[in-house]
C-alpha cells in the first residue's frame, strides 16, 4: 500500500512540471492566435484607411536608418577606459550617442518586434509623429498591439534633454521642467527627465507595451549592439540569469489579464533585479545622450545662423516682421523665451514696446524657445482622439480606457494627484497645487515645429506640397496658420459648443472656436492678440526659421518614403476630418474626483 502511495506521489511530482509545460505549450498556441488578432474597438471612420500600409512604410524607414546606425557603430573606434575616476577617453561621447541611436531604432525591444521608439518619432519631422493620416485622425499612434493607442501626440525629441528636473518654484508659483506633456517624467531619481522619459513608452500598455522593465534588458542582452552597451556601461552590466519563460512573458503585451497587477512577471533574483533596474536606467541615459547630440539637437536653424551673423544670414522681410511680432504684439516670447535681453526700449512715456526694436544684447546665444513650464491654452476636447474609444477588452483581456468619453485631460494636475492614465508622483508636497495645474500642458520648444521631410517643400501648411502634422497635446490644430490663428482669436470667436458643432454660417477654426476642455485655468495672455491675417502669416514665416538643417543638413531628414499632400487651404486644413463630439458625460470621478478636487469643477 505504501509503495503504491509512493509511486503515486512520484508520478504526481513528475507530472507537475510536465503539466506546467503542457499549460505553457497551450498558452503558446493561444499567444500565436492572439498575435494575429487585432484590437479594433473603433467605430468606422476613426482609423485611417491606410493605417496598415503606413505602419509598414515606417517600419521599412526604421530598418533603413538602423542600418546607417549600425554602420556608424562599425566605424567607431572603441573608447579607452582610463583616468581616475574612469572615463571612456576620446570616443566615449560618440560611443554613448551611437548606443542611444541604436536603441532608438530597435524594433526588437517591443513584444511583437514591430515597434521601436522611432515608430512614433521619426527624424524627418524632428522626431515627432511620422504618419500624416494618423495626424489627421486618431492623433495617438498604434503601439505594439494593434490598435491600442495612447491619448496624446508624440512630442518632438529635439531639445527635450534641456528640460530640468521638475521643480516647483515658490516665488513664481509654477512648475518648471520634466518631460512628457504632463511633466510626469520628473527626473527625480536619475536626475534627467529626458532619460526617465525614455523609460516610459517601452512599458506603456498603449505603446511598446512590455510587461516588465526586465524585458527591455532581456532584449538588450540579445541585441546586436550588446557589446557596445557593455563597453559603455560595464562588462557585467547585462549578465543576468533570465528564467526560461522570459521570452514568452516578454512577447505578451502589458496589461494582459494573465499578469494581474504584477509588474515584475519576469522572476529574477534580487541581485539580478537590481542589475536589471540599473541597466534600464542606462537605457534611458543612452537615449538621452543621442537626443542631446548633434544628430538630434544641433542648433542649425536659419534663426541660429542669423543670430550668429545677421549680415551673412539675413532673415527675409516677412521673417523679420514675424520675429518682431513674436516678441511684440504676438507676445509669444512670454512663454517661448527667445533669449533676448530683459532691457526694454527706453520709453517715451511708457515705452514703444511691444512694437519697439529690441536693442539689448543677446542674453542667450542658443535660446530654446520655451520657459520649461506649462500652460492651459484652452484647447477644445478632440473627439477624434483614439483614447476615447478603447472601452472594450482587447484579446488579452485588457481595457485601455473603461471610462471612454468621461475622460478629461487634466495634464499636470492629474499627475500631481498620481491619477488616472498617468504616473505616480514622487513628491506628495506637490499635490496641493493640483487644482491650479489642471489642464496645463508642457510649453513645447517652438524649435522645429515646422520641420517636415525635405521633399515637402511647402512645409506643414496647405496648399503645399506639405506634410500633414498635428499640433498641441491633442492634435486639434492641423496647420501652423491655424495655430497662430487660435492664439490670436480664441476669445474673438468663442462658441459654447463642442468640436463639430459650430453653428451654420461659421467655420470651425476660422471664425468658430469650440469651448475649452478645461476652462477654469485657461491662460488669458493669449486669445485676442489683434493680429491681422497677414501678421499671422508673418509669424508662421518666422516659426519656419526655427527649423534645424539650415547650416548643415539634418541627419536622416532624407528618409521619408511617403508622399506629400497638395491642395486646400491652411485655414481649414483637416476640417474634412472633423466629427461631431458625442454628448459628453460628466468628467469621471476617477479623473476629477481625486482630492484636492478641480476648482471649479471640470464640466
Amino acid at each position, binding site marked *: 500500500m505504501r509503495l503504491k502511495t509512493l509511486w503515486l506521489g512520484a508520478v504526481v511530482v513528475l507530472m507537475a512540471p510536465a503539466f506546467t509545460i503542457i499549460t505553457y505549450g497551450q498558452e503558446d498556441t493561444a499567444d500565436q492566435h492572439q498575435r494575429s488578432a487585432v484590437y479594433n474597438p473603433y467605430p468606422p471612420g476613426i482609423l485611417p484607411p491606410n493605417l496598415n500600409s503606413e505602419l509598414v512604410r515606417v517600419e521599412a524607414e526604421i530598418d533603413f536608418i538602423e542600418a546607417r546606425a549600425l554602420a556608424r557603430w562599425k566605424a567607431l573606434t572603441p573608447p579607452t577606459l582610463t583616468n581616475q575616476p574612469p572615463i571612456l577617453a576620446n570616443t566615449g561621447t560618440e560611443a554613448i550617442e551611437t548606443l542611444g541611436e541604436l536603441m532608438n531604432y530597435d524594433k526588437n525591444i517591443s513584444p511583437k518586434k514591430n515597434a521601436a521608439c522611432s515608430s512614433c518619432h521619426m527624424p524627418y519631422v524632428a522626431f515627432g509623429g511620422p504618419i500624416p493620416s494618423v495626424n489627421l485622425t486618431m492623433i495617438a499612434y498604434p503601439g505594439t498591439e494593434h490598435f491600442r493607442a495612447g491619448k496624446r501626440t508624440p512630442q518632438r525629441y529635439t531639445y527635450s534633454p534641456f528640460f530640468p528636473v521638475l521643480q516647483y518654484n515658490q*516665488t513664481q508659483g509654477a512648475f518648471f521642467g520634466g518631460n512628457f506633456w504632463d511633466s510626469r517624467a520628473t527626473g527625480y531619481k536619475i536626475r534627467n527627465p529626458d532619460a526617465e522619459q525614455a523609460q516610459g513608452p517601452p512599458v506603456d500598455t498603449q505603446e511598446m507595451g512590455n510587461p516588465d522593465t526586465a524585458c527591455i534588458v532581456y532584449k538588450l542582452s540579445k541585441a546586436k549592439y550588446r557589446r557596445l552597451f557593455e563597453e559603455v556601461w560595464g562588462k557585467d552590466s547585462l549578465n543576468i540569469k533570465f528564467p526560461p519563460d522570459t521570452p514568452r512573458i516578454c512577447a505578451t503585451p502589458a496589461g494582459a489579464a494573465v499578469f494581474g497587477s504584477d509588474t515584475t512577471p519576469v522572476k529574477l533574483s534580487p541581485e539580478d533585479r537590481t542589475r536589471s533596474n540599473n541597466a534600464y536606467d542606462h537605457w534611458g541615459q543612452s537615449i538621452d545622450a543621442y537626443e542631446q547630440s548633434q544628430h538630434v539637437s544641433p542648433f542649425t536653424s536659419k534663426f541660429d545662423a542669423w543670430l550668429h551673423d545677421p549680415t551673412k544670414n539675413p532673415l527675409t522681410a516677412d521673417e523679420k516682421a514675424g520675429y518682431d511680432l513674436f516678441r511684440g504684439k504676438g507676445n509669444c516670447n512670454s512663454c517661448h523665451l527667445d533669449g533676448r*535681453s530683459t532691457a526694454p526700449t527706453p520709453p517715451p512715456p511708457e515705452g514703444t514696446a511691444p512694437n519697439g526694436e529690441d536693442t539689448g*544684447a543677446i542674453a542667450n546665444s542658443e535660446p530654446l524657445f520655451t520657459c520649461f513650464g506649462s500652460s492651459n491654452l484652452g484647447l477644445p476636447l478632440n473627439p477624434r482622439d483614439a483614447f476615447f474609444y478603447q472601452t472594450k477588452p482587447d484579446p488579452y483581456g485588457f481595457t485601455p480606457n473603461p471610462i471612454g468619453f468621461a475622460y478629461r485631460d487634466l495634464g499636470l494636475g492629474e499627475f500631481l494627484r498620481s491619477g488616472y492614465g498617468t504616473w505616480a508622483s514622487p513628491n506628495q508636497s506637490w499635490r496641493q497645487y493640483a487644482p491650479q495645474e489642471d489642464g496645463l500642458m508642457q510649453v513645447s520648444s517652438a524649435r522645429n515645429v515646422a520641420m517636415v521631410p525635405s521633399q515637402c517643400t511647402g512645409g506643414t501648411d496647405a496648399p503645399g506640397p506639405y506634410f500633414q502634422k498635428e499640433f498641441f497635446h491633442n492634435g486639434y490644430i492641423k496647420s501652423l496658420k491655424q495655430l497662430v490663428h487660435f492664439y490670436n482669436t480664441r476669445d474673438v470667436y468663442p462658441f459654447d459648443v463642442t468640436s463639430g458643432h459650430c453653428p451654420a454660417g461659421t467655420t470651425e477654426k476660422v471664425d468658430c472656436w469650440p469651448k475649452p476642455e478645461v476652462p477654469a485655468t485657461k491662460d488669458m495672455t493669449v486669445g485676442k492678440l489683434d493680429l491681422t491675417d497677414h501678421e499671422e502669416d508673418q509669424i508662421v514665416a518666422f516659426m519656419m526659421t526655427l527649423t534645424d538643417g539650415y547650416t548643415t543638413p539634418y541627419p536622416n531628414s532624407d528618409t521619408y518614403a511617403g508622399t506629400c499632400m497638395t491642395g486646400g487651404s491652411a485655414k481649414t486644413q483637416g476640417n474634412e476630418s472633423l466629427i461631431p463630439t458625442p454628448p459628453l458625460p460628466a468628467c469621471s470621478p476617477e479623473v476629477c474626483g481625486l482630492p484636492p478636487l478641480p476648482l471649479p469643477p471640470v464640466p
Partner: protein
Amino acid sequence: MHLFHLRECKPSKFDWRLTMNVLHLNLTMRVMAMILLCSTAALTQLSPSTQKVASVRITGGPAIERVDPNSAIITWRSNNPGGSPQHYAVVYYGTNPGELSQTAKSSIRLNPTHSYTVFRVWMPNLQPRTTYYYKVDSMEANGNSDGVQSPVKQFTTP
C-alpha cells in the same frame, strides 16, 4: 524712469551641453566659457522674475472686451508690474456697487521685455440681463496684490 534694474550683459559663448553635463552627470567633461546671464535663474533659462515697479497704474481701460449672456471678458492695460512672470488678472464684482464680493481671476504671463502689460479676465457663470459692478487688480503668483487703483465700473449682460 527706468522700470527695470538694468545690468550690462556681455554676450559670449554659452554651452548648453556643459550646463546639462553638470546637471546630469554625463560621462564626458568639456570646459567652455560661461556667459554671465542677466536673469537670476540662469542655468535652466527659467523666465526671470524682474524687479517690481514702485506703482502700477492703469493706462487703458478697464473695459469690456466682450460680454455674452453668461460670461464676459474685462481687459485693461497698465505699466508692467514686474515681479513673478506668472501673474493673475483679478476682477472683484457683484450686483451691488457697494458689495463687490465675488472674484474672477485669470492667468497672465508677464513679458519682461515689454514696458506695459495687457490684463484680461474671463468671468464665467454670469446671469443674463443683469448689471454687474466691478473693479480690477493684478496680483503676483504668491497672491500679493500689485496695488492697482481701479475705478468701479459696470456692464450689463444681454
